[in-house]
């Protein structure tokens, strides 16, 4: 079946001839009033609040990106002076990294979906969950406050000695990031404890959906790596406030030590960004090929392998500052970490092969992910090879590489996941045509923006530079135009989703015909998640589902599906 579900009627919700009446109120309407949200312990509401927060941060970071790109239209001053430019790219990076991309999938989607996928009523520690959200808010306040104080011009990496001597509001910003780190840690602790102790009977480790595996692997990194960032920033603050001197050569310290400390977290952090994204892609590819995911166990093991190997390669951010011996070792290890990612891509492609593909909006984003992530990941190999890195280090090649994997990768998966779980979260379907159009515009705009940056990099354009040689202007102008196209695509995306909240068709429990447990409850779910205890089944057995045309719901046939069957 490759049916794309078309709504029977384009009439607004209140005249829909087939209204779906809920027996119990959904989690959105059960309690009303601001305080019921402020003090909620419901993981679904916390997920929604996180979603609003991170999307606001994404908007802020995106506006800064457009300002940076506008400035780069001409070699000299275009719209701002050099100092302002330094603040602009720093805040773009810091906001996008710490406020948006690291929390995005785990906190906004994971919080909502994980307990539902486990058939549980909530995460293991609901109060810690709410605390993690408020820590995110406080961290955001401190980080954004830096903008209103003396700004931040160190680059998002806060390298010493500049970060210990500059006049900008480094303390406010790093205090913010420190607090955000705890938000991340609390999410990680919650997810690991939930997956360990709250899975239903019958859901053994190798019967877990791949999104859960990816969130689990991510949580391991969050718990192990984030504290190192914490101590790094604390020492940085101590250096600025008290002159503790651990990173300052004039006081007997070592700036390369700062880099070791910083990258020991920040490299695993990129796996915090990509692993949940890969989990989403596994779900989407399987769902919209209407077939079992290929190589399930390899996908599980590769998630854990990426999490572990990710701790062995931080020195590849330091090829020009560390010893030659370390550079050689890290370069060799860096090649190894690409292998599990490659395994995933082959498994997804094998799933697609001879699948019954439906190009729904989530699927379009998933396919975009595969193309863009593969591309971005491959360009990482040039950076990992010492001989080429000498030329490419600190050029636009690096900038293009990480935008391909973080934006072309994680952001695409995040948006795809948002479209996928949107019906479950808000009970609304959206306009497929405009959803798919937004994906096309985003895909075109993204490549328009960042492909020229690979060329800029190989031709020698350094990153973070305000001025540049006139010969680079052509490619910069192309890239900037692309950035605005990308912005338009994202605006269409936002419009589609917001419009669906008001005019979208009411969503059935299982609009995609998927077997994971969150689709066994109403859309949106009631407060305690499930009216009837859900069945534990093979999460990738999709053959059993039949589409009921007038509700758009997929229902299980009578043949299989019980726990007894699953236990065999």
């Amino acid at each position, binding site marked *: 079946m490759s049916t794309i579900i078309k709504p029977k009627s384009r009439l607004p919700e209140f005249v829909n001839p087939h209204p779906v009446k809920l027996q119990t109120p959904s989690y959105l309407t059960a309690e009303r009033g601001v305080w019921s949200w402020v003090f909620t312990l419901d993981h679904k509401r916390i997920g929604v609040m996180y979603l609003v927060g991170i999307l606001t941060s994404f908007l802020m970071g995106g506006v800064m990106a457009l300002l940076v790109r506008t400035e780069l239209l001409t070699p000299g001053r275009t719209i701002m002076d050099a100092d302002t430019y330094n603040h602009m790219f720093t805040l773009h990076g810091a906001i996008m990294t710490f406020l948006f991309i690291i929390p995005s999938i785990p906190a906004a989607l994971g919080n909502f979906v994980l307990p539902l996928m486990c058939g549980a*009523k909530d995460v293991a520690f609901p109060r810690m969950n709410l605390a993690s959200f408020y820590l995110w808010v406080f961290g955001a306040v401190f980080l954004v406050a830096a903008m209103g104080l003396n700004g931040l011009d160190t680059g998002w990496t806060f390298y010493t000695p500049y970060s210990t001597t500059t006049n900008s509001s480094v303390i406010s910003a790093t205090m913010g990031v420190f607090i955000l780190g705890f938000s991340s840690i609390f999410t990680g602790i919650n997810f690991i404890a939930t997956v360990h102790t*709250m899975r239903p009977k019958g859901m053994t480790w190798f019967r877990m959906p791949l999104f859960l595996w990816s969130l689990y692997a991510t949580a391991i990194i969050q718990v192990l790596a984030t504290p190192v960032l914490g101590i790094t920033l604390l020492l940085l603050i101590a250096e600025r406030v008290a002159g*503790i001197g651990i990173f300052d050569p004039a*006081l007997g*310290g070592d700036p390369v030590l700062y880099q070791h400390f910083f990258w020991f977290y920040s490299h695993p952090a990129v796996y915090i960004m990509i692993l949940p994204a890969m989990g989403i892609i596994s779900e989407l590819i399987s769902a919209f090929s209407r077939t079992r995911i290929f190589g399930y166990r390899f996908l599980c093991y590769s998630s854990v392998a990426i999490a572990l190997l990710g701790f062995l390669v931080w020195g590849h951010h330091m090829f020009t500052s560390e010893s030659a011996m370390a550079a050689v070792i890290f370069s060799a290890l860096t090649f190894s970490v690409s292998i599990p990612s490659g395994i995933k891509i082959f498994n997804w492609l094998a799933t697609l092969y001879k699948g019954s593909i439906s190009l729904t909006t989530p699927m379009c984003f998933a396919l975009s992910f595969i193309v863009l992530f593969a591309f971005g990941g491959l360009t990482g190999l040039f950076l990992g090879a010492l001989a080429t890195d000498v030329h490419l280090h600190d050029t636009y090649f690096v900038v293009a590489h990480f935008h391909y994997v973080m934006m072309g990768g994680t952001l695409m998966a995040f948006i795809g996941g948002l479209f996928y779980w949107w019906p479950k979260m808000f009970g609304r379907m959206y306009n497929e045509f405009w959803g798919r159009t937004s994906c096309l515009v985003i895909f075109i705009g993204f490549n328009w923006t960042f492909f020229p940056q690979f060329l800029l990099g190989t031709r020698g354009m350094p990153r973070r530079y305000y001025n540049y040689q006139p010969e680079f202007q052509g490619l910069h102008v192309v890239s900037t135009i692309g950035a605005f196209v990308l912005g338009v695509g994202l605006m269409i995306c936002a419009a589609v989703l917001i419009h669906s909240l008001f005019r979208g068709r009411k969503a059935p429990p299982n609009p995609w015909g998927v077997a994971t447990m969150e689709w066994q409850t109403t859309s949106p779910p009631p407060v305690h998640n499930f009216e009837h205890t859900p069945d534990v089944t093979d999460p990738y057995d999709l053959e059993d589902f039949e589409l009921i045309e007038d509700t758009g719901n997929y229902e299980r046939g009578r043949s299989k599906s019980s726990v007894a069957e699953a236990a065999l």
Partner: protein
Amino acid sequence: MIAEAAAAAAHSSSRFRAHHFETAQQQYAAAKLGMWLFLVTEVLFFGGLFVAYAVFRTLHPEAFVNSAELLDTRLGAINTVVLLFSSLTMAWAVRCSQLGQQRGLILCLSLTLIAACLFLGIKGIEYSHKWHEGHLWASQYAAGEASAAGVFDRAGTFFSIYFAMTGLHAIHILAGMGAIGWVLKRSLRGDFGPNYFTPVDTVGLYWHLVDLVWIFLFPLLYLIG
């Protein structure tokens, strides 16, 4: 008051079981796992400082050896014994809560708090000595005539590490005292008994970790050279 606490504890069984857990055992196991995960973050947090210590000590061994002699080994050893004792009383407190021995629980928690205060007091004395002698962290290192031991190349680096490690440790002691105080307050209310003692257990785990960190800090800072 103790009798009331005992009576309340007898009824505490299902009062504290959260709605999203099936059984008290599941909730207990989850709570312990959660606390161990938090302790993992603490190990990595302090671990960074141990890395800094290792790098600076390896590259400047004389500075470390000479500066370490400026620390008062006796006070450090006393503090080590104090903290080990507090671990004993904390472990005993957990046992008391498991057996519903309200008096013992309150006594052991109080002893743990007193030991913690003693630790901080001795630490305070050490810090004030260093302040007067001018043996402070790198940018403030100003020992001159005031210090009989003299000035060594890069001594400031040693004291940066010393203050960073013991200072962060002291902050954790303070936080631990807060947590133990909260558990003590709940014990006085009779919240704990054989079927619910999780907070005593998990706060105990945190406290033992604080002791564990000191077990390594003491020889590495005080006993070298």
